[in-house]
């Protein structure tokens, strides 16, 4: 069974902390994505990556950065966490640009910044 695994289901961090959210996929997918999901706002794209060492800004990249050192791993970094970054974070992957089978999503990380 193919999987996208997010390392933490729940995280509580303090304002100003540097936060790392990890995502690993075992499907050899080239493309990986980070979204955040907020009530009333839906899913919004933060960053994505086509390949190792590559990254592209999504619609709301401010306050975030990403790292992709290996094909299977895509990390989201909150440089200095703020309360408005409290959210559900979802990682997704897809093989190439083949959207016939859509994204495979992880189960999400619910981050609370206090």
């Amino acid at each position, binding site marked *: 069974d193919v999987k996208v695994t997010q390392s933490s289901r729940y995280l509580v961090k303090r304002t100003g902390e540097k936060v790392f959210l990890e995502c690993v996929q075992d499907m050899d997918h080239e493309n990986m994505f980070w979204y955040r999901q907020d009530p009333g706002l*839906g899913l919004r794209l933060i960053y994505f990556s086509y390949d190792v060492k590559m990254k592209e800004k999504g619609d709301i990249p401010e306050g975030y950065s990403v790292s992709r050192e290996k094909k299977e791993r895509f990390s989201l970094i909150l440089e200095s966490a703020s309360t408005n970054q409290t959210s559900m974070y*979802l990682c997704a992957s897809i093989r190439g640009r083949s959207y016939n*089978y*859509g994204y495979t*999503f992880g189960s999400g990380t619910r981050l609370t910044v206090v």
Partner: protein
Amino acid sequence: EDQVTQSPEALRLQEGESSSLNCSYTVSGLRGLFWYRQDPGKGPEFLFTLYSAGEEKEKERLKATLTKKESFLHITAPKPEDSATYLCAVRAMNRDDKIIFGKGTRLHILP
């Protein structure tokens, strides 16, 4: 501006009561429309991809259809296990891999 709007926001149905969820979109060149199901506390699960007006896809009690302005997710004789949030998303010509998601429809099927 590219937009995806889903309606209704929430829908309660009796078991067996068929209905439809709507997804209207405004994009400059559709490259694909997607439906996902999301259960509470979980990531979305892919259901369908539609590419052109007139296309239909089916899976169990669900059927997705597409026109030039909107898509419908028809649910026939739903069961309580169909309760979930259904998300519509669009891939647009000028945004390439920046998929736009709608805010979803929360569906609750009463036994």
